[in-house]
């Protein structure tokens, strides 16, 4: 194909450059934008109308002028060169190494948009992942191939928790290849160095691939970061048979970049100025989690997003919740009480838990204990609210017991150390210990045989 380079940029609006008089340009094509000073920026064709092309510039348009740039259309979409050598390496938001290591020699070039997985080819996620965190393992079980986001808010320790999961996550079977792909979108240097240091300290860096777009990096680059990460993950999972945990943080920044482009294109906005296709766009990220029949590997996603104003109905958490298979919600009151990890147990949910737990996977009594802890904690919380209005004296004896239970639950079950890696048996043991605070007759959601076997014997 002839090289097509044009010096006919007409308009620059926000992150977009409008090029005139082009020929043979296709939708989604990758472009190089050459400045007169010799530097090159990357762009992608967002729209092509007759001889006009709208190009989105990833590194931002500051310093560009219609006169000083030449736009070269490369005749292909954005591709990433992937290789097993990427493990242990750090890349920028465009997939270029930034850790002073050598260039990657790609085994393969892959389009970063991927193709949608055929629903027929999917295998149902049902393999329990032990994260060592009781509130996840016992109550909101994570399984391989799931996408389970953390709904957090500013000031909450979601990074620490995500790092803890990355460090501790394992499947009860041994001898399987495991990797972490980490994509940072617009997070601060401090947060990112926390992750890198944590990975380095625990030796996890060797089996990790990191893509870094920090808060002062070009915002538009954030559009491609999760796709680079997932393309790498797909390569590792389906071609190298690895079980890949993908941590994406922070999706809120990604959505804001998307909004910026949408606004620059003067599109009709949906809710709160976000584009109407936000759902579809997010789904092309989240739905890349999964397992494929007959393939060894899997992709499990832990996206992190900060809810603006702690508001769960904000479009970003809302649309995310409609796509992902549950959510882990962080609670500010628990954090204020000094409880780590501050998981708000009641509204958190893992939709895939039912098929990942029970006999042969975790333990036969898992589902019963989970339901009983939920309902007991919910009742305790209710009783506490009532006590605030009416005073403790208004509570019945049994309700007082539940109040005690709820406090103990927060203190002993939810709270755990940042390096405390509880096995599922340990989590269950704490659960039973707490249930022991309640009389047997209250345990309506547990089968008698389990009560017989596990209910703490009192002297």
């Amino acid at each position: 194909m002839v090289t097509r380079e044009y010096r006919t940029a007409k308009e620059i609006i926000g992150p977009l450059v409008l090029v005139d008089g082009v020929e043979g340009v296709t939708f989604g094509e990758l472009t190089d934008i050459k400045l007169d000073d010799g530097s090159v920026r990357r762009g992608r064709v967002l729209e092509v109308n007759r001889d006009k092309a709208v190009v989105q510039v990833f590194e931002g348009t500051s310093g560009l002028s219609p006169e000083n740039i030449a736009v070269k259309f490369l005749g292909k979409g954005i591709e990433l060169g992937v290789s097993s050598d990427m493990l242990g390496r750090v890349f920028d938001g465009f997939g270029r190494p930034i850790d002073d290591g050598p260039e990657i020699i790609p085994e393969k070039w892959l389009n970063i948009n991927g193709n949608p997985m055929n629903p027929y080819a999917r295998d149902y996620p049902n393999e329990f992942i032990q994260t060592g965190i009781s509130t996840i393992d016992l109550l909101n079980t994570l399984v391989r191939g799931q996408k389970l986001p953390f709904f957090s808010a500013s000031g909450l320790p979601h990074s620490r928790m995500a790092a803890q999961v990355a460090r501790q996550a394992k499947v009860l079977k041994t001898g399987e290849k495991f990797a972490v792909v980490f994509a940072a979108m617009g997070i601060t240097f401090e947060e990112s160095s926390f992750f890198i240091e944590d990975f380095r300290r625990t030796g996890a860096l060797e089996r990790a691939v990191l893509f870094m777009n920090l808060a002062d990096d070009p915002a538009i680059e954030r559009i491609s970061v999760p796709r680079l990460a997932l393309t790498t993950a797909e390569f590792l999972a389906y071609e190298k048979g690895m079980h890949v945990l993908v941590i994406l943080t922070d999706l809120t920044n990604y959505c804001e970049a998307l909004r910026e482009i949408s606004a620059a294109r003067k599109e009709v906005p949906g809710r709160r100025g976000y584009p109407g296709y936000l759902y579809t766009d997010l789904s092309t990220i989240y739905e890349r989690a999964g397992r494929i029949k007959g393939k060894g590997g899997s992709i499990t996603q832990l996206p992190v997003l900060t809810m603006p104003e702690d508001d769960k109905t904000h479009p970003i958490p809302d649309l995310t919740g409609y796509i992902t298979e549950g959510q882990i919600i962080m609670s500010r009151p628990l954090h204020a009480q000094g409880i780590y990890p501050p998981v708000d147990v009641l509204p958190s949910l893992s939709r895939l838990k039912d098929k990942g737990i029970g006999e042969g996977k975790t333990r036969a009594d898992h589902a019963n204990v989970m339901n009983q802890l939920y309902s007991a904690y919910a009742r305790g919380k209710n009783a506490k609210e009532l006590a605030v209005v009416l005073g403790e004296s208004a509570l019945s004896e049994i309700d007082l017991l539940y109040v005690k239970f709820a406090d103990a639950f927060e203190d002993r079950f939810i709270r755990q150390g940042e390096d405390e890696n509880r096995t599922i048996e340990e989590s269950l043991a704490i659960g039973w210990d707490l249930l022991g605070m309640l009389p047997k007759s209250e345990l309506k959601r547990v089968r008698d045989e389990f009560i017989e076997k596990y209910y703490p014997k009192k002297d």
Partner: protein
Amino acid sequence: MSNAQGEVVKVSGPLVVAKGLANACMYEMVRVGEARLFGEIIEIRGGDCSIQVYEETEGIGPGQPVFRTGEALSVELGPGLIRSIYDGVQRPLDKLNAEFGDFIVRGAESPALDRKTQWDFVPVAKVGDAVAEGDVLGTVQESKLVVHKIMVPKGAKGKVSKIAPVTGNVDTVVAVIDTANGSREVTMVQRWPVRQPRPVARKLPPKETMTTGQRVLDMLFPLTMGGTACVPGPFGSGKTVVQHQLAKWANARIVVYVGCGERGNEMTDVLMEFPELKDPESGEPLMERTVLIANTSNMPVAAREASVFTGITIAEYFRDMGYSVALMADSTSRWAEAMREMSGRLEEMPGEEGYPAYLASRIASFYERAGSVVCTGSEERKGTLSIIGAVSPPGGDFSEPVVQATLRVVKVFWGLDDKLAFARHFPAINWLTSYSLYQEVVDSHCNEHVDAKWQENRRRAMGILQREAELDELVRLVGMDALPQTDRLLMQAAKMIREDFLHQNAFDDRDTYTSLKKQFKMLDVILHYYDKTQPALGEGVPLNKLLTLNVLEEVARAKLIAESDLDQFDALKDNISKEIDALPR
């Protein structure tokens, strides 16, 4: 068809504009670019046609060719639909998987109905019969549960000149009809444009009860065969579980499940579970009566827009055979969003929240394709098509346009409530806000066929739940102890209705489906308790004793009583009476 060919002039995401497509019609299918991507014309302006493309458009650019097909977006209808899984434009996903791999690549194509499968055609009509559109020519045993009727296609009115038993694939000629315009060969397959409703002789009011085995639905907010329902709810409130439960247990003969812009893993769940689950009536796997349409959220958005039409056209086709068909669409919000996205790209003037101004009319015309009908054809077959649409309102806010437009047309509203879901009360259908306009019809049916007290019991249960909601407010202010004793009994009865009757575990083998008879008995036991305790209280039995009867534990476990042991309920009622009578007064 002339080899009319146009040229791309503009590409913006899934929208392509082409020029030079002479005489192209609205909603005509075209193939775009060298990759021959599927597309559909959705706007014609001057010489330019706007095309929504069902596949990723990367690599398409001005100057590339566009080919006309001369046909509107159509589906293939014939034996082989049952047990299939299709994408939004009826491409068979299992075949694509086998031929093209685990990911859906562009331009992948495979016939919707397998051409290798051999079917045995058994004639019903005879040589010399005068037949018209919709008449049954013969049958094919499509699955263990479905006898597929081969019907006379549109416009083939005349005399049967040739018909005989034959075995072959769907393209096999099974009959020849002498029409006014010459003889016409009829195969087992016909095509139908999806945006055009299939005709019926006439519509009837839906009167027949649909049983779903879900207690809160059948007892409180029932649906009829041919009725329409919507299930709105915020995420995590269990829409999909409700839809799956209906697809599993509703007593329709055919189920069409449209996964429209939802999760891939959920479709996998259906695919893995349905072949295992048994239909409660026939004992055969549920897959034997099911057609799946899966256009997950990450699949192209234009195909998502088409998926509900593909689904409903297939559903109508089975309705025309005289079956009761239920269509589940999960979720219509994603469908509406697909419309919004295309509308935005066409730069149409937006209505509410960016949705196109025609949103309400599209939704209405979709639900209007449901109904109880007399099918076309001379034998007066009756068929029904029920639609159950899930709606996913942003932020759980029911005042948004899709919910509101849907509520204007559907007759049953099952409002999901995330507060109930957080309290792990499933199905999380709010009994105070939900409604069904078919209640009277179903009541009279159940009074006759289940128990004469059906309607009375239902009304009483609703009354108790309503009263509980009022009292709840009071309790929050003054505490439970401040309530009069009779009200506390009512609160107890309400709690039992909620926990021991309405609460139903979809993942428990026995609890997942409850027959109407058992539903009635379960509720009857609870009301019996309420009836017995009130006079006892008057006679001076302490309230505490009445609230803590030992038998209550049995009532709580009554949901696990097997369908074959329904006599146990009578024993349970006796036990309640005995224990209350034995209390000291």
